[in-house]
């Protein structure tokens, strides 16, 4: 049995220890907001917070996060009011939207480390892929979210 806490709720899981956290979230716990994009931690669509840090859950074996506190996109805020979500809404970032859970989670974690990033900081530290090419709006939304969080 593996114990984790997801969005504040404790789960006891009977799964193989090498099962990726992503698939535990999606198939054992039923939280499908976290997406599968590549399976090798290259795209970031599966980004969640593990003990507050952004991690690409497709490449995190569940056995390595025993006892961890995990936050997914569903748990970021009960009503989409997190500053990053509000910035995404105002800037109308998503197109297909499939990468955006991961983008939002990566941004929320990064802005805690760097509350006032430059464009160069963003380019160097936010590496999630968006195939719809929303980067122009993403960049604006990151700055807007940073301003909201500083306010």
């Amino acid at each position, binding site marked *: 049995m593996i114990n984790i806490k997801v969005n504040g709720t404790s789960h006891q899981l009977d799964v193989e220890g090498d099962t990726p956290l992503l698939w535990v979230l999606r198939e054992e716990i039923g939280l499908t907001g976290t997406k599968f994009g590549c399976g090798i931690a*290259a*795209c970031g669509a599966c980004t969640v917070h593990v003990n507050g840090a952004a991690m690409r859950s497709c490449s995190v074996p569940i056995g390595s996060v025993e006892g961890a506190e995990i936050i997914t996109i569903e748990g970021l805020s009960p009503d989409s009011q997190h500053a990053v979500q509000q910035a995404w809404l105002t800037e109308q970032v998503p197109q297909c939207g499939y990468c*955006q859970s991961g983008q939002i989670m990566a941004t929320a974690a990064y802005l805690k480390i760097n509350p006032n990033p430059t464009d160069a900081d963003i380019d160097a530290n936010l590496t999630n892929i968006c*195939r719809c*090419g929303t980067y122009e709006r993403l960049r604006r939304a990151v700055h807007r979210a940073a301003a909201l969080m500083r306010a």
Partner: protein
Amino acid sequence: MTDTTFTRLSRRHFITTALTAAGGFALGIGIGGPAEAASLSARPWGEEGKRYPGEVNAWVVIEPDDTVIIRYGRAEMGQGSFTALPQILAEELECDWALVKPEYASANRNLKENKVYGSLSTGGSRAVRETGDMVQQAGASARERLIAAAAKRWGVPASECAAAMSKVTHKPTGRTFRFGELAVEAAAIKLDKEPPLKKPDQYKFIGRRLARLDVPLKINGAAKYGIDLDVPDMVRAAIIKCPVFGGTVKSVDEGAIASRRGVLRVVKLNNAVAVVADRYFRAQAALNALPIEWEVGAAGTTDSAQFRKAYLDALDQKGAVARHDGDVDAAMPTAAKVIEATYDVPIIAHAPMEPLNAVAHVQADRVDVWVGTQNADLALTFAAQASGVRPENVYIHNTFSGGGFGRRLGPDEVAQAVAISKAVGKPVKLIWTREEELRQGRYRTQAAIRFKAGFAADGTPIALDMRNAAGSSNPANVKDGLDPQTMQGLINTAYKLPNYRIVSVLKNTHVPLGPWRAPGHSQNVFFMESFIDEMAHAAGKDPVALRRELLAHRPDFQQVIDLLVEKGDWGKPMPRGKGRGVAVHESYDSIVGMIAEVAVTNGEVKVERVVIACDCGVVVNPRGVENQLEGGMIYGLSAALFGEITVKNGRVEQGNFDTYPVVRYKDAPKTEVYISPTPGKRWGGIGEPGATMIQPAVTNAIFAATGKRLRSLPIRGQNLSGAA
């Protein structure tokens, strides 16, 4: 930016003023809560077979509480037309946007009712371009019937009544009925003739910067994509198809995984093997451990070097004349100067963020499929064929899809999921890995072209001769040795030369081909707009000036170029190692121009800024136009910088984003979009044009920065060091 008319706004709408990308002020609405704007369900497929008494026509249902269900007859893969088409319909219906709830049109009903929704296929930038008129008429027709129903109740002429904000008012007395009170009667009314549509200068809702309806569902994980669907008693499957296209399954050692936890079945298809388990992660892990032998045939010895040579060699083979204006053979010898160049591009994959997947449930007399597809009509056909169930009993529940770009037009995953469900007798969710997605694509064709241009002594181009080699993605389209799709962008160029010829050689290999965002245009605009640049330099002309000269007969193009040149700082000096490149093109009834600014440092290319100008005719929603041009540009930029699928021993070598890189933040330029529509009624498509121009704009900018002309893509891996 030309923003649009903004004459009336519901008091219930929340008005915001926002600084746009272009630096101008624009008004926006609907960013408030769900009470302020129309809303979309996270599961936006309709209830199959449900007949509403208030269905005024196939596109419009009005419920007793005034809720307006608007059917959406295309796919939503990120392009935003789940908002744009209802916006068009609402313009004519005169309903309150806050009451609108769009849902997918039913593919099953489309089949049974003789294409009542037209084509559900979402390619060719057609959603607004081709469905726009249909939904506009449907909205107008529904409005007139609601008015007629009210007039009948009051016993007054319909001409004394008007509709607005989901109410019909009798103008002389001020009496009103809500749409919800009239819908059932309206549904029974037959009009003598369909009402005329508003003229573009009468639009008050089309043209607004509305918030997209799907965005609130896409910032909290709520939106359901095919991969997210669960149905009762469902099992999960992982699949691998023979990595050599056209190959088949020779043998499978099922015993090797029989004892693994959760594994239920190995399903052998003719050309693929699937493992079915209680969980996807168990199915995939077992498949990874399953020994499979393939029958690959002669294709198993092919590679990309052979293909490239074959396409270049094909330029010397006999082809079919696709277009011939004037007499190239007579004109070319009279030229004072002649230049030639050969270009080529490799195959590339689509790589949508969401790997292909489908949930299928095959029963004896019914099939249900939940899938994010670009082509629900074809998904239905595939599901019927794979199951043997009559098409009339197949239901496609279209979900949101995580990108499409052409890959979801050929629903291979639907046929597989249906076959697996039939084999196991349960609902099955099939998920492809990223590797499967990149290795089992329907790729953009490899292509090559040879140009020859002749100039008069004063530098005026007098002849352009082209021989093109490309593969057909659909042999059914081939007629007289030509596939119109492979010629897109060449055969219908806006440039006017007195002598102009295209000879096409069709060449296919065992690699499956399909439409890739702006098919044909995608490679041909790179070719043409690069060579036009070469022609300008050969003639000693400015690249913009030559384009203007060849487009002298097109004032609409000149207007886009005016805007582009002004906003894109064309002609202004740039520091050493930097350059600007331009490209303009008309496709899908839209004229788009781009100027790219690049910096080349130690052989590394950085695209720093892209300015886009566009005339797409009627702007339904400026935000949508900007989104699609920005996103299309980035999609094309990935192809230009990195896009290359290589084949070795008949199989694709790349498997994931580590070996098939795409644009990330660090590669994404600052982008500005300017819209300058010409007056009149024209729904220009906007989903695809952005993906084409960026490729030559960047390589032309590299030429401006370094003097190095790139005649192949991708840019990555080409030697630019020392050139600057």
